[in-house]
């Protein structure tokens, strides 16, 4: 049987506000346990929440960026459950009236095609603290630094059909929140976490299959692996005559498998109700207009502009706009050299493979955009050839300075003096007299093949520095005699 995978994702993005969503405590990651927990974060009796306006602004930014409905009023609700790192015994979240309503996001797949993924809603909520089970001799420690950190939970429609699409979607959300400056996107520190709702159904069937939710997957690679594993597990289960049960599962990256955490029956009844300590949040149109005016150019808009303005392919444009840093880098290279195609080729070619090899992000690139653009300028004005440029690039990557400095220091400037090239060619021809004779005795077709040999010899003799165009031209003249 042919199976179709249906995936919906819930992404928790930690908003990069200075202070917590309902208290004035700082949100810095990695501080000493419980040093960033105020009376409110500790859930002290008598304390009350006050909403951080910046979190509201950030959520609105996101809503506008995904073209979502933003209701005039949104309401905080309490999600009640007991857990030691949940100090109040409830999480303040949103249920019936989220701040961001229905929207959508377009993703580009590897084959260059795009898909529109529906976003059901996005709501604000507070994060819980952390339970620490090591170093306490059989007891548990509670660190409430993270308690009250603002989260935006972004819930997709079940529109995703493969693990690859899921990853593309998460990457697109990741890029978007970073473009918007509302989340640092640091998955290792938990700033962006993902719950994957996965089900399978026979191809062509309209109803969804029973889904399992894989909790807290925290890297692009794990998302793909966890989903693939879960899809395989469900198909095998059904094909063996079993049934998928609705449950929450955990992905274990070490064993590359998911395992059951709790079934639907064991699930909490969260007893949501509107939080009486917080008033409904009223979003004024003027506020939204102001937020809209503050939005940066978004990844999709940037991609379109790259295609339109620079004549790049959809795929190239989407790779170059995938992150704000990548796009900024590319645009800086382009601004320096004035040649978008060459800039795109170098950024996506040499630079990307260098970064991949070194495991670096674009912000950490050892070659600055100005240096790369400056090098491309030297290609364009024939100071160096493309081949020499690769040497210059490597030298720049090694920190040897700008292209001009390297060209100067290493004497890599292309030779364009016809006299010098002719002299060099004479030497080459003299050293290969036999081949010259053969060449001259051959017909047109054979000559064509042999010509390359002489060019190669000439370039080798000039250590690559001779202007290839001139070499071609002069060589032809000399051989033709």
């Amino acid at each position: 049987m042919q199976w179709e995978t249906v995936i919906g994702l819930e992404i928790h993005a930690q908003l990069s506000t200075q202070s917590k969503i309902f208290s004035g405590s700082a949100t810095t990651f990695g501080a000493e346990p419980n040093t960033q927990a105020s009376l409110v974060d500790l859930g002290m009796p008598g304390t009350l929440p006050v909403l951080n306006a910046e979190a509201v602004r950030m959520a609105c930014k996101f809503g506008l960026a995904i073209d979502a409905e933003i209701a005039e009023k949104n309401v905080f609700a309490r999600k009640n459950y007991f857990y030691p790192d949940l100090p109040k015994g409830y999480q303040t979240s949103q249920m019936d009236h989220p701040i961001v309503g229905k929207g959508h996001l377009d993703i580009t797949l590897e084959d260059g095609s795009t898909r529109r993924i529906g976003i059901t809603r996005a709501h604000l909520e507070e994060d819980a603290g952390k339970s620490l089970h090591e170093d306490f001799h059989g007891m548990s420690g509670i660190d409430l630094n993270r308690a009250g950190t603002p989260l935006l939970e972004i819930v997709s429609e079940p529109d995703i059909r493969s693990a690859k699409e899921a990853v593309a979607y998460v990457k697109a959300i990741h890029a978007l929140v970073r473009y918007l400056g509302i989340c640092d996107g640091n998955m290792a520190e938990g700033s962006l976490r993902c719950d994957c709702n996965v089900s399978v159904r026979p191809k062509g069937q309209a109803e969804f299959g029973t889904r399992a939710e894989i909790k807290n997957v925290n890297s692009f690679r794990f998302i793909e692996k966890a989903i693939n594993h879960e899809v395989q597990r469900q198909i095998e289960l059904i094909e063996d005559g079993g049934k998928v049960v609705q449950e929450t599962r955990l992905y274990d990256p070490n064993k590359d498998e998911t395992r059951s955490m709790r079934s639907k029956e064991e699930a909490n009844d969260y007893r949501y109700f509107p939080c009486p300590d917080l008033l409904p949040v009223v979003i004024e149109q003027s506020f939204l207009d102001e937020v809209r005016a503050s939005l940066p150019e978004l990844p999709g808009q940037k991609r379109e502009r790259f295609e339109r303005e620079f004549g790049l392919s959809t795929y190239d444009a989407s790779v170059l706009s995938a992150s704000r840093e990548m796009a900024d880098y590319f645009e800086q290279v382009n601004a320096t050299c004035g040649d978008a195609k060459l800039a795109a080729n170098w950024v996506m070619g040499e630079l990307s493979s260098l970064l991949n090899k070194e495991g670096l992000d674009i912000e950490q690139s050892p070659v600055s955009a100005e240096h790369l653009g400056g090098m491309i300028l030297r290609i364009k004005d024939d100071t160096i050839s493309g081949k020499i440029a690769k040497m210059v690039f490597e030298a720049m990557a090694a920190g040897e300075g700008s292209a001009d400095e390297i060209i100067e220091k290493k004497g890599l400037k292309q030779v364009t003096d016809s006299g010098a090239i002719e002299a060099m060619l004479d030497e080459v021809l003299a050293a290969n007299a036999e081949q010259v004779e053969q060449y001259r005795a051959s017909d047109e077709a054979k000559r064509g093949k042999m010509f390359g040999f002489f060019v190669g010899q000439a370039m080798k003799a000039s250590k690559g520095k001779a202007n290839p165009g001139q070499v071609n031209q002069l060589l032809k003249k000399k051989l033709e005699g």
Partner: protein
Amino acid sequence: MHNLTLAEIARNLAEKRFSAEELTRTLLARIEQLDPQLNSFISVTDELAIAQAKAADARRAAGENGALLGAPIGHKDLFCTQGIRTSCGSRILDSFKAPYDATVVERLAAAGTVTLGKLNMDEFAMGSANESSYYGAVKNPWDLSRVPGGSSGGSAAAIAARLLPAATGTDTGGSIRQPAALTNLTGLKPTYGRVSRWGMVAYASSLDQGGPMARTAEDCALLLSAMAGFDPKDSTSVEQPLDDYLAALSQPLAGLRIGLPKEYFGAGLDPKIADAVMASVEELKRLGATVKDISLPNMQHAIPSYYVIAPAEASSNLSRFDGVRFGYRCENPVDLTDLYKRSRAEGFGDEVKRRIMVGTYALSAGYYDAYYLKAQKIRRLIKQDFVAAFEQVDLILGPTTPNLAWKLGEKNADPVSAYLEDIYTITANLAGIPGLSMPAGFIDGLPVGVQLLAPYFQEARLLNVAHQYQQVSDWHLRAPAGF
């Protein structure tokens, strides 16, 4: 000295007839001597009181002359007081010393008040008799075999017995007004949002409101002036300027339109209380008020609605008392579930458990719409009733309670009969409007209270009417025998 009101104390202190320290020592001695009969204090804060009194005297010597400078008061034991036990009348917080001051406590302290202690109350403010306290029942100074009302029963008993002139209370369904009525005091529940809830341990957040309790309306006005006002730490507090409550007291009542809701005078009301209430109406008429019969048709649904909403919010508000971070923790828990279950089972009393259970049930999947949502709809109807009524009248008047103070233990077996005692007070909390109870006579030696209700933020009007009434009556001046 102990018979003086706050206003009289202010004059005496200003005229240097005695110092705040002398007054404080006198009252502390009185508390020590008399409170064992009443059990109105959970904690007496002698050291703090003496220090605050000395500081007040120093401020006065330096030229300050605030109306509350050196005024001795007490706080209901659910207002957080830094470094002092804040128990909420519960075993679960018996060991809890708040690490901060409630806004109300802070503001009153800044005005120069002297805190004599923390006052007894129904556990987590859940009750109308002050019998659910972990620290034992409070007795009514007018008859020691009777309840003082609740939940601010400690505040009420202490003021009525002249252990202190005034105190803070909180009112979620009548917890200031009902004990005020049962002990011959004036007690005001302000408009929801008028007084900050920061540092007031929550029972039902959308209904809770702190307010003053004293013997006179004038003293309530003095306290409210210092307590009330916007607080950026409480999102539900309202950013609206305060009226001059003291200046408003002397307004004449000519032309005041008073509404008498027929639902407040129906079955269940002690006819003698009805008579006393009508006598006060006659007095107000003589002062220039006119009277009109009105109706609040949805009042009959108030108690069921309240006993869904308040427990629902309480079930969530009280989740933080889990034995993990503060308060009572059971001995030797075997695992996390055991820690939760036993800490809460041993830490909470029966009434609190009952309301947590009711509230948890009302919010459960499948029941939420039928209970919680329905109750919220009724709440809106009740609000609309008041809005409509206040288009015809300036003030609504009726009895504060259907019955006089009852015998200790009398209603223990039947919680619902105790819930019904809140029937006249609960609507003001559901609607969020201000309400005041004032002394209006005695029946068989037990005080009767009249309740006044006003539109949003018209505390000044309530205090004005009560003050004018107190200029022509002397019920509020009567003291219980033996105190």
